[in-house]
């Protein structure tokens, strides 16, 4: 991509993110939507054995790494075993959450008709139970992406990420608690998925909240027992290093997930929307909102696999149910389509998106 085109795509990053006011949709919106529909149909028609092999290979690699990591950590009194075991387990947990869990739970692989790799049967190594997460993520977040007041993922109900959200003094602390959230991200997401705020708002019954707390608790006990009790006990003399290795893997996975996810929607040049914007929204308008409400980051194959291909966040939001292995080939095509229609397309190196995200967290900690 030449710099001229890039400049045209991303005019000087706005000093503050523009939040849309109800605007007339551009006249070419439907045509733009049709182009994206066509792109989608093309990928759907081409899905096949190659894609199936890919996801089965990722599953095999992930389980192999997990088994290898657990074995190495069982003799982790030896420092090289600790290092190798922790590295393997961390990689396994990252793959499990990002390229497998997130994407399979999206239904990206349901087309294979394989009950073993299916959004309705999959459960992941992440605290929040798959069902609870599918509701808040697939339904609420992906449908109402970046709509202030509707998309709870916009700041996860604790961060102020746009001027439309009224300022409160507690937001002064948000850079601190956003940072503290990273290492315990899975706990944050699990509590967030309980939607306690929906109970106070009357959208959810206390009874169902208690049911979900019960399910979360049971899963939490199993998860914690595995990593912090059973495997250390089995490791005998290596119990303590094994426990520390498991803890390290969980924390690193949490920090990485936090990074990837925050870079998907919170860099500075990502737009937010008002509820008025989505009234009677057409498919074309929905596409436009998804593109402007997300940000990509650039990287090589490995970086993209380890981030569940969420570096292609824009493509993921436009086509959340297409296999993640296709986002890399979709990205340049979506991007050139955007260039053709003059739709801003936010992308950049991971470090820049990360810095930009933090800039926004700090900016909206203060009023205005």
């Amino acid at each position, binding site marked *: 991509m030449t710099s001229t085109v890039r400049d045209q795509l991303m005019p000087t990053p706005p000093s503050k993110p523009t939040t849309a006011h109800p605007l007339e949709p551009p006249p070419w919106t439907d045509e733009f939507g049709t182009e994206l529909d066509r792109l989608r149909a093309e990928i759907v028609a081409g899905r096949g054995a190659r894609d199936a092999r890919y996801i089965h290979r990722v599953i095999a690699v992930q389980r192999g790494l997990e088994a290898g990591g657990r074995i190495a950590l069982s003799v982790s009194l030896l420092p090289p075993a600790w290092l190798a075991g922790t590295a393997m387990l961390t990689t396994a947990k990252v793959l499990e959450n990002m390229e497998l869990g997130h994407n399979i739970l999206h239904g990206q692989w349901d087309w294979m008709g394989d*009950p073993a790799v*299916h959004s309705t049967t999959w459960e992941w190594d992440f605290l929040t139970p798959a069902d609870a997460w599918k509701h808040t993520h697939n339904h609420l977040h992906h449908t109402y992406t970046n709509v202030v007041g509707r998309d709870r993922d916009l700041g996860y109900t604790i961060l102020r990420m746009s001027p439309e959200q009224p300022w409160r003094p507690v937001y002064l602390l948000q850079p601190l608690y956003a940072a503290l959230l990273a290492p315990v991200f899975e706990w944050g997401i699990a509590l967030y998925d309980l939607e306690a705020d929906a109970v106070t708002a009357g959208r959810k019954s206390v009874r169902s909240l208690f049911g979900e707390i019960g399910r979360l608790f049971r899963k939490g006990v199993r998860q914690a027992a595995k990593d912090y009790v059973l495997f250390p006990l089995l490791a005998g003399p290596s119990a303590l290093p094994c426990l520390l290795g498991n803890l390290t893997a969980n924390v690193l996975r949490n920090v990485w997930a936090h990074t990837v996810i925050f870079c998907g929607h919170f860099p500075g040049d990502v737009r937010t929307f008002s509820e008025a914007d989505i009234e009677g929204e057409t498919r074309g308008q929905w596409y436009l909102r998804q593109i402007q409400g997300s940000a990509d980051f650039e990287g090589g194959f490995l970086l993209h696999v380890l981030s569940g291909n969420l570096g292609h966040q824009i493509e993921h939001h436009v086509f959340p149910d297409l296999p993640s292995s296709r986002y890399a080939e979709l990205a340049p095509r979506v991007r050139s389509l955007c260039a053709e229609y003059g739709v801003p397309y936010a992308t950049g190196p991971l470090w820049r998106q990360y810095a930009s995200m933090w800039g926004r967290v700090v900016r909206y900690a203060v009023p205005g």
Partner: protein
Amino acid sequence: MPAFSPHPPSPPWGLPGRVGRRLLSVLGTLTAPLTTPLSPDDYLGLVDPLLCARHPAGVVTAVRPETADAATLVIRPGLGWRGGHRAGQFLPVGVELDGVRHWRTYSLTSAADAPGREVTITVKADPRGKVSPHLVHRTPPGTLLRLGPAQGEFVLPAPGATPDRLLFVTAGSGVTPVMGMLRTLVRRPGPGPDVVLLHSAPAPDECLFHAELGHLAHEVPWLRLHLRYTRTAGRITGRDIDLLCPDWRSRETWACGPEGLLDVLREHGEAGRPRAERPAGEHPGGAEGPCVRRLHVERFRLAAPAALPSATPLGPVAANDGAGGRVRFARSGVEVESAASVPLLEAGERAGLPMPYGCRRGICFGCLVPLVSGRVRDLRTGEVRDGDGELIQTCVQSAAGPVVLDR
């Protein structure tokens, strides 16, 4: 040829995985806390899919051609398959084609109590289908198939409960479940019951098991076989049945074939005999011939689902493209007419059913419901497809003909 039973096959997922072998089961229980949220089985399955209990599999060990377009597949089920079947049952088989797993059911043709763990299914290639031609013509030994538990109530009774006089009326690949029953009867000790088989096939070289049937009829004193070649002799009529088997109304009868054949039996069985009592819960939809002593029927898959009135036009539902269809919610028993443009989710909600839902626009997959049978239309693309056993997004799929949902 897939057969449609009064009990539509439930898709194999959702069934509790039962480890065939005790050792695996104990091992699984012991190690489960270490592999949570996966099961030890998920790791075993990676090492060898035949060990997997949650998703039982089998390996094809031989493929024997039967006719130009039919073959028998010999399958060695893995440890996880919930073993055993009754003669006449069918086997759900998951076949992977270009990355997509398709589920079909085929009648088991091996004897029910045969030693060893191999079973056979006999498949006739449907030129309009994609799975059956693949199984018949392009499946080398060594191919892995996912297996569901054997199902169906079109079965031969246990040795003590088998009646003395039986009649089998079959046509085309409808002979496959009956072949399993005959092979089972042959293996039973002692004198067999009095069995008449009236089988119709287009011509001798298109007759499944032609040689084996001839051989059986010759060797086994209790079997009378009448083969009818419809290309020259025409379809069998009620009068033919009267002539070939005068006491047919007093025989317990198993019939499997196209709807026309079953109609002949039903219509011609009206000789004013008292209606036989039907054991509660057994053969639902089966004993329909009020005047035949007990009639068990097995329909072909392409016929309309059993619960629909028999006046419903039968045959490939593709004829209904462009129209909606009747939607039956199998668990609740509710039936509604639904237009081609109405998502199945809405059809269910209008009928007052609690349907799972999410975004209502095909994004979140919160509305998935298993499609038992029928054809559905993707409202986003207009594409109409068969999806038996698949989970479908009800918010963007509408009925394209009669549809049965597991809801």
